[in-house]
């Protein structure tokens, strides 16, 4: 029996799923709000460990006073890093040593019940610890840190970086001896961006899990001028770093491609080939509805062995791009329809 849907049926079905999703989302939203607002008020927010406000005196003996107790290899490893080079006048260890970052902590050196002046990590307020790092590292890629999304969300420098670690592995194309063939230097970002991790395992993706592309190849996590913390000033300029052949400009522009690569592509991963958000012909039909084949309905009746083969060429192989291949733009004088 032929199914003859009406627009009402389709609209109802869409609305049904829309209502369902909205209801579920609203419930989660309310739950989060109740917990987030109620819990601090109910239990009283726990006094998270604060740094000391001791009087601003440096410990006698400098770093030697610190390492009497803090002599763990992981702590002393800072002396094998750029921050530990005394011969460079810019480094903490050319100045007050440990206290150059952790602040004057004579009180703590005398009595370990007194907290050190400045601690680092997610357990402590971001702004004062960031101020320490930014006192030296404010320029270059960090000029736009203030007001950037990570800064606004309270992500501290020490959330991702550990300057005691000689490797400073985070987000650098670095080599780990336990990496098999592949290394995933982007793993540090997945803690807050788990959706990206799953996208990198889709059938079409940038080589992120292979370690060839890392997050900071496209994103400046310290702040940038564009949406999504891109390294360049817009999406297309970021993509042209590796795909310069798409830059043009072309004689015949394909306007959505000139506008924004993400009109058609999903940059982290997709279930469709070539990182496309949707497959042709339907991707193309979002914007093309002309008389004849561009606007026609393509159902599974067009697949081999099922029905008429008349529409095979619009569904199979590369679909629209079997003919209209130059969808990023064409520079051929006869290329107005992107066939040349």
């Amino acid at each position: 029996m032929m199914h003859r849907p009406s627009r009402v049926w389709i609209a109802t079905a869409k609305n049904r799923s829309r209502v369902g999703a909205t209801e579920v989302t609203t419930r989660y939203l309310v739950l989060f709000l109740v917990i987030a607002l109620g819990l601090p008020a109910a239990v009283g927010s726990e006094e998270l460990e604060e740094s000391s406000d001791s009087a601003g005196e440096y410990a006698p003996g400098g770093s030697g006073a610190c390492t009497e107790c803090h002599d763990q290899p992981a702590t002393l490893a800072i002396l094998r890093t750029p921050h530990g080079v005394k011969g460079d006048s810019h480094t903490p260890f050319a100045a007050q040593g440990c206290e150059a970052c952790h602040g004057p902590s004579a009180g703590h050196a005398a009595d370990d019940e007194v907290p050190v002046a400045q601690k680092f990590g997610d357990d402590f307020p971001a702004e004062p610890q960031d101020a320490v790092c930014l006192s030296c590292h404010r320029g270059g890629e960090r000029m736009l840190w203030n007001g950037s999304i990570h800064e606004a969300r309270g992500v501290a420098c020490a959330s991702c970086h550990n300057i005691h670690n000689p490797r400073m592995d985070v987000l650098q194309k670095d080599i780990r001896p336990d990496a098999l063939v592949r290394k995933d230097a982007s793993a540090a970002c997945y803690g807050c961006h788990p959706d990206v991790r799953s996208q990198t395992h889709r059938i079409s993706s940038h080589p992120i899990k292979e370690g060839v592309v890392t997050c900071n190849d496209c994103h400046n996590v310290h702040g940038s001028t564009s949406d999504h913390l891109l390294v360049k000033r817009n999406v297309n300029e970021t993509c042209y770093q590796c795909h310069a052949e798409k830059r043009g400009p072309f004689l015949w522009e394909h306007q959505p491609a000139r506008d924004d690569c993400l009109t058609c592509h999903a940059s982290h991963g997709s279930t469709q080939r070539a990182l496309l958000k949707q497959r042709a012909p339907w991707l193309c039909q979002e914007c093309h509805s002309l008389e004849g084949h561009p606007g026609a309905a393509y159902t599974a009746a067009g697949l081999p062995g099922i029905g008429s083969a008349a529409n095979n060429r619009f569904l199979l192989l590369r679909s629209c791009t079997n003919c209209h291949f130059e969808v990023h733009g064409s520079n051929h004088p006869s290329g107005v329809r992107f066939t040349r």
Partner: protein
Amino acid sequence: MEHDRVHRFVRGALGTLAGLALALPAAALPPEVNESWIELGAWVNSDDSYKFGDFTGLEEKGVSVLGNFDISRRAVWDSGDVRWWRAQGQNLGLDSRFARGDFGYQGLFDVWFEYEEIPKYQTDSASTVFQGRGTDRLTLRPSWISGSSTANFSALDANERDLDIEHMRRDVRAGFGLDLPADLEWVGDYEYETKKGRKIVGAVIGSSGGGARASLVPEPLDYQTNEGSTALRWNGERAQLQIGYEISVFNDSNDSLTWQNPFSGGGAGVGYPNGFGRKATAPDNSFNQVSVTGGVDLPWNTRISGDAAFGWMRQHADFLPYTVNPALTAPVPPPRGDADAGIDTTAATLRLASRPIDRLRIDANIRYDDRDNNTPRDVYQYVSGDALSQQGINSDRARLNLPNSYQLVEGRFEAGYEIFERTELSFAYKRQEIERTYTEVDHIGENTYEGALHSRPLSWLQMRVEGGIADRNGSEYMYQSPLFQGFTPGYIGSIKPPAPLYENNPLLRKNVYADRERSRVLGRVDLMPLDSFSIGLDASWVTDDYDHSTLGLTRRETLSSTVDLSWSPIEILTTYAWFTYDNLQSDLDGRTFGNVAEAFNPERDWYERDEDHVYTAGVGAELHLLDDQLRLRADYVYSMADTAVRVRTGPALAQTSQNFPDLESRLHDFNVSAEYQLRENIAVRLSYLLEDLKTGDWAIDGVAPNTIANVLGLGEDSPHYRNHLVGFAVRYEFR
């Protein structure tokens, strides 16, 4: 093939030796502080698979050299010696090798050099009847038997030859940083990249109306890209400034691809054997940009920062002729010798970030992004598909190019206040206005309202919930714009009823500038009830509704949810597990029509829903035994994706509604490794990787080169493989 394997192994061995040579000078330096190791061994790969080798270089069965190293030298911290040196290399025995060297006098200068190879394997299950693959001219063998349809290609099997589609990127990069007096710093870098190989393109001869005949053919890739940037920075205590310049120059060694038409018919000089088609490849282009970026700290914990950049894209590749077919007439040449294409870009941002009083945060941002396309606009009396002679200037084959320009102005304001200790409530408003030229909508405005609650009430509990709505509206949708702006006045004047005075259906709304309502919600909870145990819960939902669009994309929705666990029950054991579910949906409304009456007949509508369900999970553990002498590790990732495409047709359409077979992919990725510390500075490692991928795509599976009547295909298959990879290595650590 055997010769290729040996060649690759030798290349790998030489690459390893070359990389290690980079490390030797460091080894010869006197003992100093270092974190260094060299690893040598072998990979044994069980099977050929282009997809397994994609980006990794492990596409062939057999043995490859395993070579990695990381050697660095730095003097004892208080020696006064500021020299440092680092050399890294990975996958030296594979075609995905990477090597880098750094050297510097800390506080004075540093220089670095990098080399990288990135292999891309698209398919090895394809075949082609064309000779000359890898060149810019493809021809058919004398034994070729033509026809008006692929069903007539009786010599197809005899003429098919295997075709691998792959390419290799090779990058050479170098850079420097120089510390100058007065808080100045000068940095620069340069990259030279080549991309060589082949890609698949669709190549059509003929024009629409039933005459088009296409072939999927290999197009040569021979790209070179030179990129460089430099910046002078002043890093003051309260203010910073950077003046920068960057350049990118792209070259394609091929300017076109010519192919012989395998199909017969189509008019003089169109069909086999004399018919050829010719398409342009990527034109050479360049981009230059100067920029200035700066920031200044003001009182009241306030900072103003900004950026301005001026750039210019240029493209002057010579035009090809309208047609390669000498039998066609094209008396009117192109109006110019090249497009003289250019886009001038202007980007500027001004940002205010202030924490004027305790607990209050204010962020404001203004952004401007302008792309002024000044490519000259002319009439091109083109030849359609190398098959139809040039038509007159008042025909539908005389077109004007549309150099789209774009201008964005955006302002965003956000304020956050700590309503409780470590609990911030924030609100944001953004206004965005975009203007475009030569599009259906000149101007778009969007208001976005966002709210967020971020709380860390306890040291072991952190929560965040964000939400936002955005409402986008545009100026009048000028559905006739592509017609009126893309065709000559003479042609437009010749259009008489019942012929339509539009290109796209007047009811279509292109989603790029259609009115839209966007809703977004995100929630996240992180719990660490114990030092050894943590849980993360994450969920996000975004939906775009195009309720004013009768035709076109009407809705897109994305839902993602994740659970993350990590547990270290005892000091020597760490474990983790994670699971993500993604659901992506899009709804498209279309209409099949062949005349004006049908264009407005809703019974000719069709509806397409595309829905992805993607499940991805990972679990792993790392165990240290024998006082860290033995280190065991296991990781497993499973990814399952199903894509359902459903199309329903309205009552007036002849086609029955049928569901497409689901598109499926299943990936299992399991690897274990054991590393044993033989001596203080020597460790041996044995590793095993099993990767199993199964995919299905009805668009290519079982589609023979002659399945489609007027498209000659490649007979390729969806990727699937099961590979076992064993690795053995010895690591020497410099201590």
